[in-house]
Structures are given as C-alpha cells and as structure tokens.
C-alpha cells in the first residue's frame, strides 16, 4: 500500500510539473533559510559550552545605580578577586583574568630578536585553569603559572613563536619590552566559539597592579570568574554578597555599587556586558532570527496549502473513484500526506545542497567558522527530522482533510466546488503570507534607513583623513614624544598632530569618579580622555566657553576641560559659570578652563557621556594625525618611516578613524544584511506562491473568461477583473501588517539614543512594493489567459 502510494505520489508530482516546481522551490528555499538560521543560532549558543564545570562557572560583573540611570561593566575592581576568595565559603575557585595588549619579542639562540609582534595577552591566576579545563599538552595547569614571569601559550602561538610547539617549554619571550617570561606550558588552541580566546596566558603574579586597593575604579579589562562548589546554588551567594558589599564599599561612592553573578552560558548573549572576544549576539537578535526562520517556513507552507487545495478540484475525480472502490477517509489522508512528505523530502535534499552552497558566504559574513556537518552534529538530524515532519504535516494536513472529505457521488462527476469555505481560507492564508512579507519589508527599510542615518550623522567631531597610530608609553619612549610630534607635523600634507589616550569616539572608555566645585560629590562618573594641546584642532572640536588646555609636559593633570553633558548633569545651564570652578579628580585638584561642545564619545547607540579632558604625558596611547585627504598614502608611508626611526624596537600599527567608526556598526550592518536577504527570500517565496495561485485561478476561470470575451469584454477588462480581488487582498494584508511592523520597529529603534523618526514612508513604500509585485505577477499570468481564443476554452464540455 505504502509503495503504491509512493509510486502514485511521484506520478502525480510529475504530472503537475509546474506546481511541483513552485512547491519545491518555495519549500527548499524556506528550508535552506531555516537550516542556516539553525546553524547560526546553535553556533551562537555553543559559546563557552565545552567546559566540564560549565554549569557552575559564573563571571562576576559590576552593576551600579546612579541617579541618572544604571551602568553595566563586565570588569570588576582589582581588589575584588582576593576579597571574594577570602569572604565566600561556597566558592571552589576564584580567579582574576586581566586582558592586556602589547608587543612580544622572541629571540633566537644567539640573542637576536627574530620575531616582533603585537599580541593580545592575558594575565591569569592559576585558579583560572582549575575553573576552565583547558587541554594542556605540556606543563601542569595547576603549577605552570604560579611563579611570576611565567607564561603558557596555545599550540598555534607556540608554533608561531618557536617553530614547533614541542620546543616551546623552557624558552623565554619578552612582553612589552619589560620582563622576559619563561614558557612553562602549552595548551590546545581555544576554539573560536569562546568568550575568552586565550592564546597567551601570563602569570597573574607578574601583573603590575595586582595589589591595587582601590574599589572605586572599574576597568572592563579586569574580569573575575568563580566556580561554585558542588550543590551550591547561585542564589545562595546573595546573603554573603550583601555583607561583602557593605564590608568593602566603605568609601562614600557615587551611585550604589553592586555585583552580579553571570552564568557562563549567558556571557555571549548578554548584550549589556560583552566579553574579551569582542563578539556578542544578543538574545533579541537570536529571537529575531528564530522568528524569521519560522516565518520563512510558514510562508513556504502557506504556498503549499494554497496550491494543494487549489489543485484539489482537479483531483476530485480520483478521490471519488477511490472512495467508490472502498477507500476510507483515513486511507485517503494517508495517501495525500505521503505525497506531501515526498515533496518535502525532495525539498529537503535541495535545501541541504543550497545550504552547502550558501554556507561559505554566511561564514564570511559573520566571520565565524560555521559548518554544516551532519555526522559531526547528530542534533542537526533531529532538527531536520522535526522540520520535515512539521512542514509535511502542517502543509499536508489541511488539503488532505479537504480532499478526503469530498462526497464521492459529486466528486466522481467533477461537480465538486471547493466552495466559499475553501476560498476564504485560501484568501486568509494569502493575506497572512503577504502581511508577513510586508512586515519584513518595512522592517528592512527602517533598518537600512537607520544605518544610513548613523553613518551620516555628525558625531560632533571630524573623522575623515585621520590616522591613529599606536605609541609605546614606557619612560624611555616618552622622551621621544616631542621630537616625534615635531617631525610628523613638519611632513607636507599633515595638518595637525595630537597625542591622546584615545580618539573622541571609542568603544573602550574609562569612567571615573570625581568631585566638582570642591563641595559636591558628583552623583555620576565621568568619561576621561587624556589629550594634549592639539587635540581640539586635530579632531575639529568646538569650544563653547573659556580656553582649551595649555601645553604641558607634566605627568599630572593641572587643569580640566569638560563637555556640555557634564554641566547639564550638574544642573548648570550657563556654560560660562563652569569656568574657574575646581574639579577634584584622581587626587588632583584643578580648575575648569573650558567647555567643549558635545561630541559622541561612544557610538550612536549610546548617549553622550559626561566627560573630563586633561593632559597627562604618561597616559598617551596613540598619536592622531590629521592629513590632507589627497595625500594620505604618501604621508602614511613617511610617518611610518619617522616612527620607526624612534621606536625601531616596537611594532608600528595604524588605523583610520573612519574605519573605526564603521566598525562600531558591524552588528547593525550584519542585521541589515540578514534582514535584506531574508526579506528578499520571503518576497520571492510569496511571489512564486502568488504566481501559482493566479495560474490556478486563471485556469479555473478559463470558461468564464471565454464567455465574457464572447460577450464583448476586452483583454484589459479581463486582466483588471482578475487583478481586483488580489489587489484587495494585498491592501488588507497591508492594514494588518502595519500595526505589527510598527510595534516591532518602534521597539528596535528605541534601543538607539540617536534614531530616525518613524514616519509613514517605509510603510507606504512596502505597500507600493507589495502592490507592484502583485500587479506584475497577476497581470503576467492573467494576460496570457485572457488572450487565448475563447473557442478553445468553450470547446470542452
């Protein structure tokens, strides 16, 4: 029976090649989208999941309430790790992890430097490797990093430094032109789906600031991980935490400091904190993608249902005959479901092929190694099986029910009329399908507009033709700052040069407490930028009051410049009033000499922070060079030459302000691309579904059209007749889609401090798009039908 059903299914599919093609195309494209989304999401959820203790590992993060809001930081104050080790009994391990960046030099056997490179390195406490069970190839994870000036390397890094990782242990590398570090261990490479992709782990005992006692300063590079004892719940930590906070936060601090324990599995998907990997995918994004995946499948299923019920009339005779021969309703349903499943399986095979084709593109887009490996990940089988079953049943059940319900006496004489009931459901399904399409199109348009807005909105400073070049900050190098600056400034094509801790806009910000006007302890932290006297000119900042910082060679700040937001937060409306007021910052009291107009110190997602700018020679990290746009290549070459004259021991690295800014928005760009791709896919699926449906309607109404033509209707009138009902449906779909789209878009836009106003245009545009697509599709097909000679159509009877 089953074999026969299968055979009949194939013959039927072959007979209606056109519809089969449309169905398979729609389903396989929908499934491809679904598989890709599944692969992406399961990759994102696989972050940090390879550790044995993963359910007991938590990251301690900082959270502070201010009068003006709250602040999240993935870092903790430096004294927190030892204090927690001391005060929490239920923790098996506490380990600090300090992110760092610097130059590594490797010498050959004769003592000559053979390799000079800038690398990310981590200071890790030995406990870190008790929490995370890295696979150690050489060395003892418990002991390797106990002594100061020791380092463990990943296999690849060890091979890079010494040629062969087997020979790494016992050799030394030099970090930041400072101490030589002895290699005591080699561990297997940490996979990319990790929040801490550690390649160089330096003993924490060698970290300069490990004994820092200040609780008021939080840097996001200082993370702390804890491992709960077996059986301890994270909620058990709340009690001791209260006492802990009370005990250590004794100084009067601004806001209300708190620490949260973040489960390991949440690190990658919690957008408030981020991680060393620099990657994060928020739960909302994952949810959004899941919804899109479901919608993709849904539109494909709707296509199927529509075409199948439309075709049902043509198959009524077969149903009738089968029933007369003694087939029960159930047997017919099974037969039709078999057909659907065959179709779904064919679509699945195609989808697998498509996935293989598209996957490299997606991996490149996400810059992640995502593989479609059925054997390596048996879970995919489960997913695919569920998907096929869902699609098969979802799209096959309703048509099967309709068809098996035909009355045999009528069906056998082809007198079946699917009737108004079936038509209504088909119409509702088409409306749903188009509503989904319209929501996505509108969403895509808004995302594209917001992206354009962010790219084009002025950040409040000049960002074009500015190069940011790293500089070493050891005392020897510092002595060469002046001459370096003078020489670069003298280069033709260079218009301004400035030393600073960072560019005006940065995603690496330092926030600090301060006191204003001697008496008031400010209720918020201020973003601090260490700059020199040319910063204003280099980045085109505008001064609103007072003067700019004077030239200073000192390592301590003497005077301050603040921004408008800081004054606003202090309730000062007149910028002039600020001049001359004293600021106490980092133990140094100094006058405010000027106020700058606000500029974006983060990206456009966040609002502008209150800011204090000062000069301190010991805290410069980059030199910013403003050039003539036309001369950039030549100037950059010369700057590198000059730089290498002074810092031949170091590694030169430079990037451009513009590129940095566009990098802030890679997440948005990604989302934008994804939305564009999937919106196109859904439009395409809906389009071919509509085409199938209108083909059917045209065939069904051939006789009617022929009669009308005989009565004198022309082609245009007939095309209009067929179009009208579809156009009405599309308009209705728009009405349904708009409020839904509005809610989603408004929610998405509210995540941006600077956003486009939501007006009617994206909605109107998506209506236009849907109308045009419908008109083109329907007219194409109905024109063909309307043009046929009425005699041919009326001959049958």
């Amino acid at each position, binding site marked *: 029976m089953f074999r026969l059903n299968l055979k009949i299914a194939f013959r039927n599919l072959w007979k209606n090649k056109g519809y089969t093609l449309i169905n398979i195309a729609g389903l396989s494209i929908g499934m491809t989208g679904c598989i890709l989304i599944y692969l992406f999401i399961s990759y994102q959820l696989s972050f940090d999941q390879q550790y044995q203790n993963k359910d007991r590992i938590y990251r301690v993060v900082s959270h502070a309430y201010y009068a003006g809001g709250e602040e999240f930081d993935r870092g903790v104050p430096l004294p927190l790790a030892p204090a927690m080790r001391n005060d929490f009994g239920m923790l098996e391990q506490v380990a600090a992890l300090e992110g760092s960046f610097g130059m590594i030099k490797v010498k050959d056997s004769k003592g000559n430097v053979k390799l000079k490179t800038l690398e990310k390195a981590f200071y890790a406490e030995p406990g870190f490797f008790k929490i995370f069970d890295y696979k150690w190839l050489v060395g003892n994870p418990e002991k390797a990093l106990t002594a100061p000036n020791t380092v463990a390397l990943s296999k690849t890094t060890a091979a890079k430094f010494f040629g062969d990782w087997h020979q790494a242990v016992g050799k030394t590398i030099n970090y930041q032109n400072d101490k030589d570090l002895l290699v005591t261990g080699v561990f297997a490479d940490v996979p990319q789906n990790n929040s801490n992709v550690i390649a160089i782990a330096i003993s924490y005992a060698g970290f300069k600031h490990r004994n820092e006692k200040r609780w008021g300063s939080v840097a996001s590079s200082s993370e702390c991980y804890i491992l709960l004892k077996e059986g301890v719940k994270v909620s058990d930590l709340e009690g001791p935490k209260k006492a802990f906070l009370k005990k250590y936060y004794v100084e009067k601090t601004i806001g209300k400091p708190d620490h949260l324990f973040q489960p390991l599995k949440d690190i990658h998907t919690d957008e408030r904190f981020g991680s060393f990997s620099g990657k994060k995918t928020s739960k909302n994004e994952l949810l959004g993608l899941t919804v899109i995946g479901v919608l993709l499948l849904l539109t494909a299923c709707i296509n199927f249902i529509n075409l199948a019920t439309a075709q049902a009339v043509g198959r009524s005779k077969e149903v009738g005959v089968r029933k*007369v*021969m003694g087939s029960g309703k159930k047997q017919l349903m099974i037969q039709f479901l078999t057909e659907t499943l065959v179709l779904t399986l064919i679509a699945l095979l195609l989808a697998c092929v498509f996935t293989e084709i598209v996957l490299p593109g997606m991996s490149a887009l996400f810059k992640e190694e995502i593989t479609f490996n059925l054997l390596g990940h048996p879970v995919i089988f489960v997913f695919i099986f569920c998907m096929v079953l869902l699609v098969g049943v979802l799209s096959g059940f309703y048509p099967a029910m309709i068809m098996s319900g035909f*009355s045999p006496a009528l069906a056998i004489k082809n007198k079946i009329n699917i009737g108004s009931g079936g038509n209504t459901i088909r119409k509702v399904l088409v409306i749903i399908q188009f509503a989904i399409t319209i929501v996505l199109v509108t969403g895509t348009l808004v995302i594209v507009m917001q992206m354009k807005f962010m790219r084009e909105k002025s950040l409040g400073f000049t960002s074009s033709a500015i190069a940011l070049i790293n500089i070493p900050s050891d005392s020897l190098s510092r002595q060469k700052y002046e001459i370096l600056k003078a020489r670069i400034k003298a280069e033709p094509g260079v218009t301004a040069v400035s030393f600073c801790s960072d560019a005006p806009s940065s995603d690496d910000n330092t926030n600090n407490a301060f006191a204003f006007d001697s008496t008031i302890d400010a209720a918020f932290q201020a973003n601090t930028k260490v700059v020199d006297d040319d910063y204003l000119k280099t980045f085109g900042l505008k001064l609103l009051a007072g003067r700019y910082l004077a030239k200073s060679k000192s390592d301590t700040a003497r005077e301050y410049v603040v921004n408008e937001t800081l004054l606003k937060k202090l309730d000062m409306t007149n910028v002039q009033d600020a001049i001359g007021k004293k600021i106490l910052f980092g133990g140094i009291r100094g006058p405010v000499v000027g106020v700058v107009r606000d500029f974006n110190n983060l990206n456009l997602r966040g609002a502008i922070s209150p800011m204090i700018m000062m000069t301190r020679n010991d805290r410069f990290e980059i030199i910013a060079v403003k050039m003539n746009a036309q001369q950039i290549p030549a100037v950059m070459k010369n700057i590198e030459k000059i730089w290498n004259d002074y810092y031949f021991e170091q590694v030169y690295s430079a990037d451009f302000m513009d590129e940095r800014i566009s990098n802030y928005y890679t997440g948005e760009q990604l989302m934008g691309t994804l939305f564009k791709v999937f919106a196109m896919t859904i439009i395409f699926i809906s389009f071919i579904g509509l085409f199938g449906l209108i083909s059917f309607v045209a065939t069904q109404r051939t006789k009617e059209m022929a009669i009308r033509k005989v009565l004198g209707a022309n082609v245009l009138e007939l095309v209009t007749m067929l179009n009208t009902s579809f156009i009405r449906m599309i308009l209705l779909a728009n009405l349904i889609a708009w409020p839904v789209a509005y809610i989603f878009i408004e929610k998405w836009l509210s995540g941006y401090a600077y956003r486009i106003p939501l007006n009617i245009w994206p909605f109107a545009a998506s209506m236009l798009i849907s109308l045009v697509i419908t008109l083109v599709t329907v007219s194409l097909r109905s024109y063909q039908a309307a043009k046929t000679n009425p005699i041919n159509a009326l001959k049958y009877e």
Partner: protein
Amino acid sequence: MIQLQNIEKYYANKGMKSYILRHVSTTIRQGEFVSIMGPSGAGKSTLLNILGMLEEPTYGTYEFMGENVVSLNERKRIELYRNHIGFVFQAYHLIDEMTVAENIEAPLLYKKVGAAERKSRVAEMLDRFNMVAKKDLFPGQLSGGQQQLVGIARALAAQPLLILADEPTGNLQSAQALQIMDLFRKLNEEENITIIQVTHSEVNAGYGSRILHLLDGVISEDLQVVV
C-alpha cells in the same frame, strides 16, 4: 437482497423542495439483472447512487442483505459496499495515474486482501479479459472499450455480489457496447452476480431480466423481460 421502502430524495432550495425521487419502493432479489430506464432528470442516477450507498435518501428505508443501510455509520457502510458492491461508470473513471494492473488491484488494497492473493486475482482478471499485454499501460493509452473492460475487471476483482452500472456503454461504439452487454449477461447467468444498470438503450435493457421505468422520480412501470 435489496429492499427499498418509500425512498424519497429532494433538495431544498430557498424553501422550495425539488424532488428527485418519490415513494420508490421495490425489491430486488439475488441474481436479477435489472435495467433502470427513463428520460433525463427522472432520477435514475440518484437511485443508483442510493443503491450504491454513495448518497443517502431523505426519507425511507433501504435494506441491503438484511441490514438497514440508512442507520449504519460511515465506516460500516464503507465496509459493506467495499465487500459486496462493484461499480461500473459511463466515463469508466479509472485512476489516470495508475496502470491497468494497479487500477484492478486498487479495490483489493482497500479490502485488505493479502499480497499473494491480490497478485493472483489481478492476473486472473487480466487473463480473463485478454489484457495481459496491456497491464502496464495507463488508461490514457487505451481505447474506450478497453477502458470499460478494465473498469469491469476492477469491479469484479473484489468479487462483488452486486454490480451497479451507470450507462456502462454510453460512451462506446455499438460493437463494443454489445461486447460489454454480453459480458454482463454472462456474469449474471454463470456467476449469479446481481446486476443493476441505468441505460437509455432498449437493446441494452433487453439483456436484463427486469426493467424499472422511472418518470419524474416515480417508478411508473416494473416489467419482467420475457425472452
């Protein structure tokens, strides 16, 4: 075998009842060969559909082999006609996607006949109707007469006690029609299969043993055919 009592069938249309059948009562015994005749719209096909349990009468009782069909549920009814009734249609109504052999086999599948038995019965039918060479052809590749032979073979494969035929020769040329009618007579006489046919043709009716004349839904005449 069949007892109809006061069968009525009407469609209500905007309050108006349009009668198809009125007060139809008759008894048909095992082994009879009945022809139902009458002008278009007299209700012949409806009567045949009711006999074949494809339609339900509005009123009246229908007993088939002692069972009241009207009161049976759908599954029982399907069971009943699946086992005892074979249909032959004017337009053959073969399933276009199935080969000759598969068409003949189909009712056996629904009857849940075992695979070996099915094979032998299909082979027997093909043999009997001289269609062994055509068993893998599709209905579209056969002539009308051949298609009707397949239709009859299909009806016979399930070994029914009753064959209902709705103008079985209506689409055929006269030579083929004669062949079909000869076949019916043979089945009726040699295998004692009850046959009820709807026909317009006096010639065809002459093959049977009894003629029911329908006029506007009423049995106007019930004649025994004298050979």
